[in-house]
């Protein structure tokens, strides 16, 4: 099995999708000859031509507006927003248009073919405008699907599933891992299910939930805890909308404890949604309060990035507090 980094896996998925279906069209800022600022679309224009892989003007609302129309026409657009931090000019097109197309027309029209790819998250010394994790804004939007892969294998399988999914998908790529995460990725076509969490590691004392780049940090915290004799069950949600309540609830019924961790700020973050749902479903089984380990309620800092981010030590401390409650 070949080894790929996350960018190569994403590029490979796009290549497979474009080769299979001529309706798949990739575009965004600098995605043409240059292959995207991170090179996720390298060589696609060379292989499939300028009509199917091209640069757009610098206009995020235009990119998504255009993508909505193209998807409504029956094409399968994969639109790139260069950084998730710059998705907000397109917010109206995503929230009011993409997400509601099928519903408002009574299924006369839909933009289910649309996938929006965008790099998110910190850890790259990007400061406040190249580090944000905006997932919670979009998980509040019925009609969208929100997917976050954690490694190259996941990225390829989930991206292919997103492109072929009958609903529009916002695909958030952890940019810190673009080159850092390397792993075995089958060369052939495969898909991973959207809406299903994955139990990365089984355990019995506490459940740790996260997604994307945070999974690596959660893994490290679990290792520290295991050294202290605390058995952690680690769950990667993979999809935030819809999210797999059953897998998390079953795990918490077993362990009696839950910690959710994400990079985005605490207030209004998606961890709050998970905590509320799980206390509803597992109230009598909980041994300690559900705990959230997240970024601070501040814009993302530059120099004090490491302090801001929820790292393995912060999660480890939360695990100890939960177990000793």
């Amino acid at each position, binding site marked *: 099995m070949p080894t790929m980094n996350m960018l190569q896996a994403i590029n490979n998925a796009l290549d497979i999708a474009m080769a299979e279906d001529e309706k798949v*069209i990739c575009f965004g800022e600098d995605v043409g000859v240059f292959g995207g600022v991170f090179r996720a679309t390298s060589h696609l224009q060379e292989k499939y031509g300028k*009509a*199917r892989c*091209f640069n*757009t*003007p610098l*206009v995020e*609302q*235009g990119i*998504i*507006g*255009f*993508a*909505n*129309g*193209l*998807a*409504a*026409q*029956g*094409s399968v*657009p994969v639109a790139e927003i260069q950084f998730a931090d710059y998705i907000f*000019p397109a917010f*109206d*097109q995503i929230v*009011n*248009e993409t997400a*509601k*197309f*099928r*519903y*408002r*027309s*009574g*299924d*006369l*029209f*839909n933009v*289910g073919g649309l996938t929006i790819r965008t790099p998110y998250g910190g850890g790259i010394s990007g400061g406040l405008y190249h580090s944000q994790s905006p997932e919670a804004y979009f998980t509040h939007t*019925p*009609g969208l*699907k929100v997917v976050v892969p954690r490694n190259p294998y996941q990225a390829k399988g989930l991206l292919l599933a997103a492109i072929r999914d*009958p*609903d529009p998908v916002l695909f958030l790529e952890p940019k810190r891992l673009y080159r850092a995460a390397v792993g075995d990725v089958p060369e052939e076509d495969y898909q991973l299910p959207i*809406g299903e969490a994955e139990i990365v590691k089984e355990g019995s004392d506490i459940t740790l939930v996260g997604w994307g780049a945070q999974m690596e940090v959660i893994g490290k915290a679990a290792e520290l805890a295991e050294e202290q004799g605390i058995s952690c069950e680690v769950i990667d949600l993979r999809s935030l909308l*819809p999210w797999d*309540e059953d897998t998390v609830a079953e795990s918490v019924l077993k362990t009696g404890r839950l910690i959710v961790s994400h990079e985005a700020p605490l207030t209004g973050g998606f961890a709050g949604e998970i905590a509320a749902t799980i206390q509803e479903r597992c109230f009598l089984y909980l041994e300690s309060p559900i705990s959230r380990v997240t970024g601070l309620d501040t814009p993302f800092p530059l120099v004090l990035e490491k302090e801001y981010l929820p790292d393995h030590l912060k999660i480890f401390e939360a695990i100890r507090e939960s177990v000793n409650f």
Partner: protein
Amino acid sequence: MTQYVHQPLFLTGDEFTIDTFSLLDPEGELYEGASEPALERDHARRLYQAMLATRILDERMLAAQRQGRLSFYMQCTGEEAAVVGATAALNDADMIMAQYREQGALMYRGFSIDEFMNQLFGNELDYGKGRQMPIHYGSRKLHYMTISSPLATQIPQATGYAYGQKLAGDGHCTLTFFGEGAASEGDFHAALNMASVHQVPVIFFCRNNGYAISTPSTEQFAADGIAPRAFGYHMHVIRVDGNDALAVFEATTQARKIAVEKNQPVLIEAMSYRLAAHSSSDDPSGYRSKEEEEIWRAKDPLLRLQKWLVKKGWWSEEEEAAQQESLRREVLDTLKRAEKRPPPPLDSLISDVYADVTPALQRQLDQLKRHIRRYPDAYPKGAKSLDLDVDTATDSQGDA
């Protein structure tokens, strides 16, 4: 090639004023030097009849709104020539992405009075399943994209839709309607720039009707209208008399040729006037004068085309009277039927959010059904859909 000058030279844009293309004068006579467009008798009658039917539907539905039978309505009055004239110049399979005031386009393409009415009342036959306010029509069959309320969002979508048509190579284009107010939104600029850069067969049709709700166009832009913006995007542009159906038809016919044959976008600015209020919730007497409205009433687009048709022997006063009478009756009869039809079923609350209903949505609907079974009188529409006995005398929203 760059030309250098050695004294500072500022341009203001005043060099770029655009003339207005017009064929028929208000008396329905061709202007000197104007040639009649290639418009056959039946085609011309179809165009006029759609304008007439739109006018009558609008009059009746505004009256129905005033009687409290309808929550909201928007009239196309004064702009029928712009909307129907443009639509008549398209192939019926070309996509139309409208703003909201373009029911004339649907009328021309054969949307039935029943279909209009089902949407207006949001009943069980509404294609949109009673989810949107009145006037948010859509028809896949007639290539008319379902209306979205947020302003101007359809404009970049039209660029994308047309790009897909270009790749599909089926010779179709997309026409998007919008008002001069919507042209202030970022979506408008995004759409024109992308269409021009990517050589897309799209027609941007601006209905410059003088007002964005209460804001006059003088407070909307500081230039010679919307048309000159095309220069900045290196785009074909024409300004047309929006109350002259023949001129609109001819301009759009030629625009379509450019779009489809050259894969190039075209901007059309139709100069017209919104004779009615913005919507049934608006009262224009608060921001404009009766005198101003009278000036435009004299330029009524229906009368102008009607006079031309009569002179050609393609229409008569008798036909006009008979058509008006039968349309009025049809609208009233259909209205009575449509308002009595049941609402969409409760299950439609959760359908079409995603291609398939998610477990979370199903749980929420099941919970809602249990609640309605407990308090059927508080939710008569939901209870009816669940076949529960409801005391129809209590149509209250309160607790039972």
